[in-house]
């Protein structure tokens, strides 16, 4: 008998980081497939580009940092970051935009802070926000038109060679279109535009429902808890009910929920545990804050979608939220808040 010097517990459950990240990737698949089917090959190419770049960048930095490369690549967290970014970027953006974004996410937002578990901000959203403020043209006009999807070769040439896409193949997102047009048109007139399709927003609505389904899967697998997505949607929906009741003035509730990156944000981006608030109570505050901020930025800000900025702002607030939202410990009369200890 060789005595192993270890302390209790001597047994662990079946979970692993690899499994958690793998489940997140799996849950992203339906939404990704819907986006690819609706908007063309761009999402497929972007996904491959982002994932390849992420693995290379992560491996390289890990090597420079003298960390075990295989061990950390195996946790799949780089792939999750890459996937989130690829799903957030416009599908017809040039290849270097995707590569640049992934490099920013992995190198600057993640590894320079110490790698997995140490990044105070959501890496994919740091990259997205940086690209949006630096290269707004590519980030706002390269969205694909679901009624005029390009073939594989056309898409490849747009992304890699820089061919200017044929007129009508690209454009702005439905949220953007609605916000700009409602200033001079009525709601019913705006909704005549093909970008809104027959339901809420062509392509986007189904994709959002698919992400919602993926999120339900993560909830069922207990990888995420309900707190962040629900409070996120309540925050956003509540604001929309409060200020957007007149669809002739502002973007209506349905478009807020199913028109942009809402479901992806609520179930996959805001729930990134590393950069989120941590207690159940804290998660409620955190998610609600993101929902409210998204509405504020979408409505009164300059950017059509706002998930990235809202998430980053609440990332800043997460430590503070944690400080004041500790749960009541067994046997205590009330929770310990801030620095006050009885």
């Amino acid at each position, binding site marked *: *008998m*060789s*005595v*192993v*010097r*270890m*302390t*209790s*517990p*001597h*047994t*662990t*459950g079946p*979970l*692993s*980081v690899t*499994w*958690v990240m793998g489940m997140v990737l799996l849950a992203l698949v339906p939404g990704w497939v819907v986006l690819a089917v609706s908007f063309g090959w761009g999402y497929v190419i972007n996904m491959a580009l982002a994932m390849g770049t992420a693995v290379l960048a992560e491996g390289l930095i890990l090597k420079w940092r003298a960390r075990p490369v295989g*061990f950390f690549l195996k*946790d799949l*967290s780089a792939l999750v970051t890459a996937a989130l970014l690829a799903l957030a970027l416009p599908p017809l953006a040039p290849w270097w935009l995707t590569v640049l974004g992934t490099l920013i996410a992995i190198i600057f937002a993640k590894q320079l802070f110490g*790698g*997995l*578990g*140490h990044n105070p901000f959501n890496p994919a959203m740091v990259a997205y926000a940086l690209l949006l403020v630096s290269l707004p043209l590519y980030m706002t006009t390269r969205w694909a038109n679901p009624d005029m999807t390009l073939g594989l070769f056309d898409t490849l040439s747009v992304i890699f060679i820089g061919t200017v896409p044929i007129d009508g193949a690209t454009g702005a997102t439905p949220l953007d279109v609605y916000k700009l047009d409602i200033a001079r048109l009525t709601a019913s007139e705006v909704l005549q535009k093909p970008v809104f399709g027959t339901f809420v927003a062509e392509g986007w609505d189904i994709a959002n429902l698919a992400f919602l389904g993926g999120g339900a899967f993560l909830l069922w697998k*207990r*990888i995420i*808890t309900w707190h962040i997505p629900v409070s996120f949607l309540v925050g956003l929906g509540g604001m929309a009910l409060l200020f957007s009741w007149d669809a002739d003035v502002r973007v209506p509730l349905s478009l807020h929920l199913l028109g942009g990156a809402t479901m992806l944000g609520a179930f996959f981006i805001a729930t990134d*545990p*590393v950069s*989120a608030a*941590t*207690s*159940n109570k804290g*998660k409620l505050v955190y998610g609600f804050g993101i929902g409210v901020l998204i509405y504020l930025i979408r409505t009164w800000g300059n950017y059509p979608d706002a998930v990235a900025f809202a998430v980053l702002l609440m990332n800043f607030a997460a430590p503070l939220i*944690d400080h004041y939202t*500790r*749960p*009541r*410990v*067994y*046997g*205590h*009369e009330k929770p*310990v808040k801030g*620095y006050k*200890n009885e």
Partner: protein
Amino acid sequence: MTPQSVIASDKVFDFHGGIHPAEKKTISNTTPIETLPVPACLVLPLNMHIGAPAEPVVGVGNTVRKGDVLAKAVGGVSAAVHAPTSGRICAIEDRAIPHESGLSAPCIVLEADGEDDWRERHPIKDWQSADVEDLIQRVRDAGLAGMGGAGFPTDVKYRNKHKPIHTLLINAAECEPYITADDRLMRERAEEIVQGAAIAARMLGANTIRLGIEDNKPEALAAMHAAAHHCDVDIKFSVVPTKYPSGGEKQLIQLVTGEEVPKRGLPSDLGIVCQNVGTLAQIYRAVVLDEPLISRITTVTGEATERPGNYEVLIGTPIETVLNTAGVHLKKADRVIMGGPMMGFALPDITAPLVKTTNCLLAPTRTELPAPMPDNPCIRCGMCEQVCPANLLPQQLLWASKHRDLEAAELHSIFDCIECGACAYVCPSRIPLVQYYRYAKGEIRHEEEEYLKSERARARFEARQARLEREKAEKEARRKARAEAAAKARAKKNAEGGGGDEKDDAIKAAIARSQAKKAQKAEATAEKSIEDLEKALELAATKVKKANERLVVAEQESPEMAPALRKALDKLEEKHSQAQKALDEARKKETQS
């Protein structure tokens, strides 16, 4: 129809979190309890319980009978040690004990004579009418300590009566995976437990007896129910869902009553005393049969065990002997764990004896409970938080502990952690969380001790300073008194010396003048030297003071510098006292002249 559906269960509450690890109970709970033969040599540690170690009352070479006291309880929280069989005391010395540290501790070594000859016993058959104090004393004399694994001296629970107790809660949950000692005990000796519970309730003055049991032990539940009926003891059964750690005292109380034991409090604050089934059976044996705690039921299990099951083993039997009897293949096992897989510890030395708290010996194979894998960083997924029965934030405690941020650890109520290991069990990063918490708790305790130590040192130093000041003042007062006395004496002498004829006067005057001149001269030199000495003394005093201050600072900030500074201070103090002496002498001379 399962027994649960027949036996009405009280309303059951829930506690936060909890986990469902593989139960693995069937490995060991299908065979009856087997009694292990008396070994040739027994080793009895003086401290098998929480509290002060027992004090030996026998000497090397004494012969003892089975049940004789070998070591008596000392102080309020302690438990006596008895001879598990008859024989001769062959040594009282340090031996390996079953403890995580792997350290040795004082033990009484008993060589069995094979007779197994009982001492005279005085059963209390009629315990219903016996004096309660006598019953409690009997429990203390029997050396009872909690059999569930914690080893808290049993009699303390019955003596401590700062609040009236209304409920005795029988802990029959046995939530740790693998362990089935309580399960088998309930199946086979339910009446002992029930009677023990009745005695315990009488000792407490409790009017309600409740029992909390997990729903994975239907046979035990049925046996307990039948025994309660048969003995005509009213027990309220609460069948709780199988969830680890429902057997934790605080969690079981919450499950059965819905109440929480207050922070830093005891179950008695709620009017409840919680007692494990094994302990209750021992109370019955101690009172009704006058048998002290000399044997216990231990589960020997794990896939490296050929004949897993429950064994009644004499306290003091070498663990190795128990393992051999059960057919443990030590080559297949990585480690032997005392207790369960969630809260037990790996035995550093299997030659150590089985003690009062050894409820399980677990010999798992390498595939069954594999050695820990390298851990990933914490991703703050919060799964730990969802399972923590104390409703803590384990992920935050990890950050605080890992970075030795002890203040943050205390803000996150680290001392409310019961170290159940549920957080580490679910952690996808496989972080040994409980280990970090133990470290932080240890560091906090250490810092508190250090603080008290430095407080004491400061008090000591201040007292010394005050004493020195006082002595100096006293010396000064004495010097002044002497000087005054001398001046008076001189004045008196001068007054007496006055008068006489003129001639004499003239001569005397001349002599006096010359003497005065001389005296003036001498005084001048004397004064100068006294002045110098005083200056020197002052200088020495300030030097001592400064050195003292430096020492105090050093003691707090860089203890490794303290000895050198202390030496220097001693030297300076010596110089100071020399200067004082010289000055005193000079002053004495002055007053004499």
